[in-house]
């Protein structure tokens, strides 16, 4: 049940660059679109989330952009820093408690 497809699997970006991670989904019943950030040895933590009634949300250097017609939402990390090196997961929400998180995207920011 591949309801969510995240890309790329990994990316390397230079300090100060922009990291972009995409999440494509199939279920049009999703109504909450969060991104989670996980550092090595830690559990994932909610980073930023958006509802489908807005197309973009910005929190500091992190921005979610949402394209309802394309059934896709993206995470942009502006001015990427070495401290942003982590694994990022998208996990849109509908009334489906059994949906797993998927493999995520490993971001490495080189100093």
């Amino acid at each position: 049940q591949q309801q969510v497809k995240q890309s790329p699997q990994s990316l390397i970006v230079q300090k100060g660059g922009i990291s972009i991670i995409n999440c494509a989904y199939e279920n049009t019943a999703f109504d909450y679109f969060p991104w989670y950030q996980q550092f090595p040895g830690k559990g994932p933590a909610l980073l930023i989330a958006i509802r489908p009634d807005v197309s973009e949300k910005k929190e500091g250097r992190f921005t979610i952009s949402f394209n309802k017609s394309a059934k896709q939402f993206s995470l942009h990390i502006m001015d990427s820093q070495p401290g942003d090196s982590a694994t990022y997961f998208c996990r849109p929400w509908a009334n489906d408690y059994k949906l797993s998180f998927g493999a995520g995207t490993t971001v490495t920011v080189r100093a």
Partner: protein
Amino acid sequence: DAGITQSPRHKVTETGTPVTLRCHQTENHRYMYWYRQDPGHGLRLIHYSYGVKDTDKGEVSDGYSVSRSKTEDFLLTLESATSSQTSVYFCAISEEGGAIGGYTFGSGTRLTVV
């Protein structure tokens, strides 16, 4: 992590032995979840609970059982541990199934079955 504690943090056990992992929350959230995380597979749901004594299976439930006798505790039991169950196990909690505020995860339990 605030409000959610997993124990033990690390465990090494032998094949065929039963193992119980504990998740304790102080947030009074209705929903609790057990995930396992393996390289290349991400976070996969094992079981979840939507209330005391109310549980359901997730994507990878074979070989695992759960119990929730109190709102704050959710136990994961490996009835007879196998090497394929070597993994990092995460407990998570949420309000209203994750639609409000998302999931809060514990720090994980690293389980090695030898």
